């Protein structure tokens, strides 16, 4: 039990076996307690056990491949996912993507886990998440011995004992553990608006443009000297935008808007050009096919000598994601590429006198 003098428990936990979802997933944890050498961080446990290694750095969104030897805090611009190296075998990681059953992976390697989970907190780089305590639990009234009450705050640790991957998505299993960690304000986990924006971008589904060419691929050949109308479906927000949204992490919210601003076309005949948003008109019946009103291309040669007898065409859509929040703003760019093929024939004209 927690003592009144707030002395942190440091007691070895004997080997315990934790069996997960099907009984095939077994994690053995016999952890040796590690002293917390950080003066700004003190942990209390409500049980005489120490399932979680003490960590001396925090992993935040934007932190790529955090290393315990290289304390770092996210500053934006990086991955929104944190990584967990299963190589030391401390935490059992299993793969349940196959229907035949769970496969325990002793040496799985590096996997991605969320840097932040609502209700759980921030990944601390070890096997714990650091966050607010449960709503019905009051933090300890006093700071650890020697700490200024105004210098930090108590955080609740949630430490995972195992991970089951299902199609790459982690499902966590948690230690039967209650523990506080004192963290100085300057080391407190936080998130920047850009990191919130990047988190949104990582979660949103942005797709390649849906091509609406004329003549449509597969339904007939185009002709040398006649245009290919480079239309796209502008009605689908996920492939064209605009998308407007608001996204919050840990109370930090940003407003976002995303849309395709231009498309770069590689026509497969050595020609590459860019058409702006608003120029990708789809040919409709009644229009003069020979007079395209928007983005188009004239092939100069037939595709007869191309591999497969057709030109391979790619359309790379350039998304701009504007975000703003907490007096900050920025733009992120994303590209998506659609590919198709077009057949171009040549009309042989025989002129007789």
């Amino acid at each position: 039990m927690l003592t009144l003098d707030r002395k942190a428990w440091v007691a070895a936990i004997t080997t315990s076996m934790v069996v997960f979802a099907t009984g095939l997933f077994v994690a053995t944890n016999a952890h040796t307690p590690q002293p917390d050498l950080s003066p700004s961080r003190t942990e209390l446990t409500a049980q005489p056990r120490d399932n979680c290694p003490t960590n001396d750095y925090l992993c935040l969104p934007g932190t790529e491949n955090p290393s315990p030897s290289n304390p770092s805090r996210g500053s934006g611009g990086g991955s929104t996912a944190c990584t967990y190296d299963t190589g030391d075998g401390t935490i059992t990681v299993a793969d349940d993507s196959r229907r035949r059953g769970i496969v325990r992976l002793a040496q799985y390697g590096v996997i991605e886990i969320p840097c932040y989970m609502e209700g759980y907190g921030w990944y601390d780089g070890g096997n714990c998440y650091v966050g607010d305590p449960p709503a019905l639990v009051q933090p300890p009234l006093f700071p650890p011995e020697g700490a200024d009450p105004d210098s930090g705050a108590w955080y609740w640790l949630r430490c995972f004992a195992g991970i089951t991957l299902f199609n790459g998505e982690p499902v966590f299993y948690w230690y039967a553990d209650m523990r506080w960690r004192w963290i100085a304000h300057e080391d407190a986990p936080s998130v920047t608006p850009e990191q919130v924006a990047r988190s949104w971008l990582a979660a949103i589904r942005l797709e390649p443009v849906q091509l609406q060419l004329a003549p449509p691929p597969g339904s007939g050949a185009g002709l040398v000297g006649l245009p290919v109308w480079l239309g796209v479906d502008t009605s689908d927000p996920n492939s064209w935008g605009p998308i407007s949204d608001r996204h919050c992490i840990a109370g930090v919210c940003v407003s976002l808007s995303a849309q395709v601003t231009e498309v770069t076309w590689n026509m497969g005949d050595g020609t590459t050009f860019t058409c702006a948003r608003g120029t990708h008109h789809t040919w409709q019946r009644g229009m003069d096919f020979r007079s395209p009103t928007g983005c188009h291309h004239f092939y100069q040669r037939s595709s007869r000598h191309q591999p497969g007898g057709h030109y391979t065409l790619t359309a790379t859509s350039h998304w701009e994601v504007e975000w703003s929040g907490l007096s900050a703003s920025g733009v992120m760019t994303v590209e998506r590429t659609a590919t198709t093929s077009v057949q171009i024939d040549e009309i042989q004209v025989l002129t007789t006198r």
Partner: protein
Amino acid sequence: MTTTSRSLVRAVGFAAMIALGLSVTACGGDSGDGLPPPASPPADTPAQTIDPEHQQILDVYYGSVDAMVAAQAAGDPDYPDLANYFLVGAAALMNVESGIQHNNLRGTYYLGDLEVVSATVTEVDLEAEPPVAVIEACLDYSNYLLVHREDDSRVPGVEPPGRHPVTNQAVLGTDGFWYIATSETHWTESC
């Protein structure tokens, strides 16, 4: 020592089992407080009076088992009754949620009877932060099976694990109610 036997309804998620358990005292376990284990009462001894607070904690524990069983049967990690007995944001409920989530992903759930063999409150520490009570339990997992939800056919390779002791912690919330916060099943031990 209080010995309580209670047969629970069907469908219990294995992972959720991790989060729940009852007394170790019936299993010959160590109470962990350095005191000798209490002597077993004679078979014909009338029911003992239980400390009201202990009874309240046990009631919460039983309620949590019922809620978990119902949530697992429904395949609903957000099953409303869970929050009445589990401490939201603590390991026990997180594991219940993970277990249900995992079973849902696999299209499986647990079907059968779970017998709670015994449950005892072995320790109450109101000075801890948060105030905490320890519940030692023995659960009989023998009669439940992991099955496919589509046809209740058994998932092969998963054997009923028998009776095992489970150590739980309940936390006194700021609202004055006890909630199950942690649970650890000792799978290598029998009771």
